């Protein structure tokens, strides 16, 4: 093991100083999600609003980071500008290895810089640099500049925000190394409110190999699992976009603001189309041999006489849903062009797309017009969406400023909340049925990754309130364990409890290895208690009418079942949070 406790670096931007803190809890809070919650309880202020300068922005890795493949993610936690409650967002890129090799388990940023700044840390240095000239600069440009401004081996991670984060949009993300994102629930604004444009993490520490033969044996076992079996084939091949065709076939793919759940136009915009027409190359998070990142290429003629430029945009299932089918855009090029603007402005592409889908339907219904949207919105018009994305990301007027705070906030003022596709936050691309709608609405991160409800829906046609709730709790606990290690969730089929225990044992965490069963549940509880402590109230979350009106492979949604499930799951969460630890 690298250490039996947590080594945390706490940077105070108001004071311009950093301090190393040594914390206990390795054998109970583990790392990642557990450590992040522990740190919020220590440094956070549940009663103060998200934008209070004292609120912490937390990045945490786990006990297996650096040791095993696919332990490639970082957990970022903060009080969210979206709902003013505690939340997490996860990303990979080079962030996890960089943080681990900067000799830390976590980085905590508190305070607020008086001017726009960036933070540069390594295992033996820290620097806060004022960078006023980067005000409003887009994410890609900022990345290039930061890369050149700071010397480094290249073994580092560059986290940065765009204009959306700077102007406090609740759908702004933190970009990690160009192709990955701490996407949802407004991490970008949590960083922006600190006047913090970028964080450069240099991974320059070196650790000894764990003693004994066990480690190399277990490593080989894990590596063979990953590469020799076809477990990861899906992520390796077409990647997550392979889901487009599949979900469309079972009437679970949201189209045009969820006015439909399947469409024959899918063949123009499925995973194969993207691969054939745009796929340029693959990329990987550090420490991951799978390389699920699919980078697409769009060529653009910008002048007569064959003057061309090109863009590289990483695509996944989610943005193809949110900027493709959800907006009625059925051309890969169009989707990548919109996605490119989302990336540059630093918006979460899922939330941004779903917000624009609502704005389009609101336009159709005459609730808003070009006066608000600045450009005429209609389903399928990719060019208009590119412009609208820029207007949204830069908060160009009152309408877009409000929309950037959440679709339901805009709907409260302009009308149209019944067709706002919001489940706790803008929906993920799974119109699979009641279990998913309830799970995202009330889930800890309001993410499709909190638990496998979308998969549950696809396997169960019968109604079973207790069965669903039982599944959601168990699945969430397992994922809590994964996100405390911190593993990529794509590897959850590989890192079963037994293998995780072997891994922990081999690097010198026998106590963690021996107690693996209850750990996930303990962290699940800690997270919920932290969230509830910041004001989570399930009854205040509503499921808009649109979700009651759709048809999936199971037939029409049953409103009564959906309502009951929501009420019962909400009660179960509150009860779980209140139980003794």
């Amino acid at each position, binding site marked *: 093991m690298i250490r039996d406790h947590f080594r945390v670096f706490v940077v105070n931007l108001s004071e311009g100083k950093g301090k190393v803190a040594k914390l206990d809890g390795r054998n109970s809070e583990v790392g990642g999600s557990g450590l992040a919650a522990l740190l919020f309880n220590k440094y956070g202020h549940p009663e103060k609003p998200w934008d209070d300068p004292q609120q912490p922005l937390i990045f945490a890795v786990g006990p297996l980071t650096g040791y095993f493949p696919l332990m490639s993610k970082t957990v970022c936690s903060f009080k969210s500008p979206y709902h003013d409650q505690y939340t997490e967002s996860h990303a990979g890129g080079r962030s996890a290895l960089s943080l681990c090799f900067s000799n830390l388990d976590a980085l905590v940023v508190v305070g607020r810089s008086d001017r726009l700044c960036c933070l540069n840390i390594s295992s033996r240095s820290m620097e806060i640099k004022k960078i006023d000239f980067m005000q409003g600069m887009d994410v890609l440009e900022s990345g290039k500049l930061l890369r050149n401004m700071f010397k480094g081996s*290249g073994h580092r991670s560059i986290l940065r925000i765009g204009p959306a984060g700077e102007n406090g949009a609740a759908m702004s993300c933190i970009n990690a190394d160009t192709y990955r994102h701490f996407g949802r629930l407004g991490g970008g604004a949590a960083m922006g409110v600190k006047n913090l444009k970028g964080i450069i993490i240099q991974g320059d520490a*070196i650790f*000894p190999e764990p003693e004994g033969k066990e480690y190399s044996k277990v490593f080989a076992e894990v590596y063979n699992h990953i590469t020799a079996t076809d477990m990861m084939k899906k992520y390796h091949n077409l990647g997550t976009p392979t889901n487009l065709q599949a979900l469309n076939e079972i009437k679970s793919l949201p189209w045009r603001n969820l006015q439909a759940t399947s469409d024959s136009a899918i063949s123009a915009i499925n995973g194969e189309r993207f691969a054939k027409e745009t796929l340029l190359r693959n990329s990987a998070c550090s*420490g991951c041999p799978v*390389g699920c990142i699919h980078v697409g290429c769009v060529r653009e003629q910008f002048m007569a006489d064959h003057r061309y430029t090109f863009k590289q945009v990483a695509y996944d299932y989610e943005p193809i849903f949110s900027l493709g089918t959800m907006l009625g855009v059925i051309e890969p090029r169009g989707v990548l062009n919109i996605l490119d603007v989302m990336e540059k402005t630093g918006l979460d592409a899922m939330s941004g797309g779903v917000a624009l889908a609502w704005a389009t339907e609101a336009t159709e219904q005459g609730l808003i017009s070009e006066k608000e949207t600045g450009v005429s919105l209609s389903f399928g018009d990719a060019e208009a969406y590119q412009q609208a994305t820029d207007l949204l990301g830069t908060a160009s007027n009152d309408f877009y400023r409000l929309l950037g705070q959440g679709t339901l906030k805009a709907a409260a003022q302009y009308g149209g909340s019944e067709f706002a596709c919001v489940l706790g936050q803008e929906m993920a691309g799974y119109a699979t049925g009641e279990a998913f709608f309830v799970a995202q609405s009330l889930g800890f991160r309001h993410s499709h990754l909190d638990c496998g409800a979308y998969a549950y829906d696809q396997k169960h046609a019968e109604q079973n309130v207790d069965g669903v709730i039982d599944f959601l709790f168990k699945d969430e606990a397992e994922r809590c364990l994964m996100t405390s290690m911190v593993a990529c969730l794509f590897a959850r089929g590989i890192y079963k409890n037994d293998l995780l225990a072997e891994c922990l044992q081999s690097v010198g965490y026998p106590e963690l290895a021996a107690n693996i069963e209850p750990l996930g549940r303990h962290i699940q509880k800690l997270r919920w208690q932290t969230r509830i402590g910041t004001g989570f109230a399930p009854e205040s979350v509503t499921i808009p009418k649109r979700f009651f009106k759709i048809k999936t492979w199971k037939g029409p949604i049953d409103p009564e079942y959906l309502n009951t499930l929501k009420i019962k799951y909400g009660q179960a969460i509150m009860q779980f949070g209140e139980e003794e630890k």
Partner: protein
Amino acid sequence: MKKILITPKIDRCIGCHSCSLACARLVHKRISWDTAGIRIHSSGGLTTGFTANHCLACDPAPCAEACPTDAFSQRKGGGVIVKKTLCINCGDCVAACPVDAIFQDLSGEVFVCIHCGRCVEFCPHNCLEMKEVENILQEEAVS
């Protein structure tokens, strides 16, 4: 026949660092992406792909010529034979290498590729190969 590590298909690299982590782990007994015979860098930002720093197996090897203690000596077929016990951590080899293939940690210890081939099987995109030396020289002569 002596073999050396070459990276003929590094344009396919996805930047996973599996190779350098493997070298550090298996050859140098470290958990690190620095203390390795091969180190991966983006070639000027992630949108431009990756390059690998590694020993090109010079013969004669400037690093061995520069070494005042014979800790580095000429390896047949190119590259160097490393005798760590002789090393005084002066770093002269690091300065002499034209392609920045040698990593020196803070304590002064140096790390270089010994052309053992253990990293090769960890590359998911087959960017790395072990080549018999004579073929290499011929190929380089033509290109």
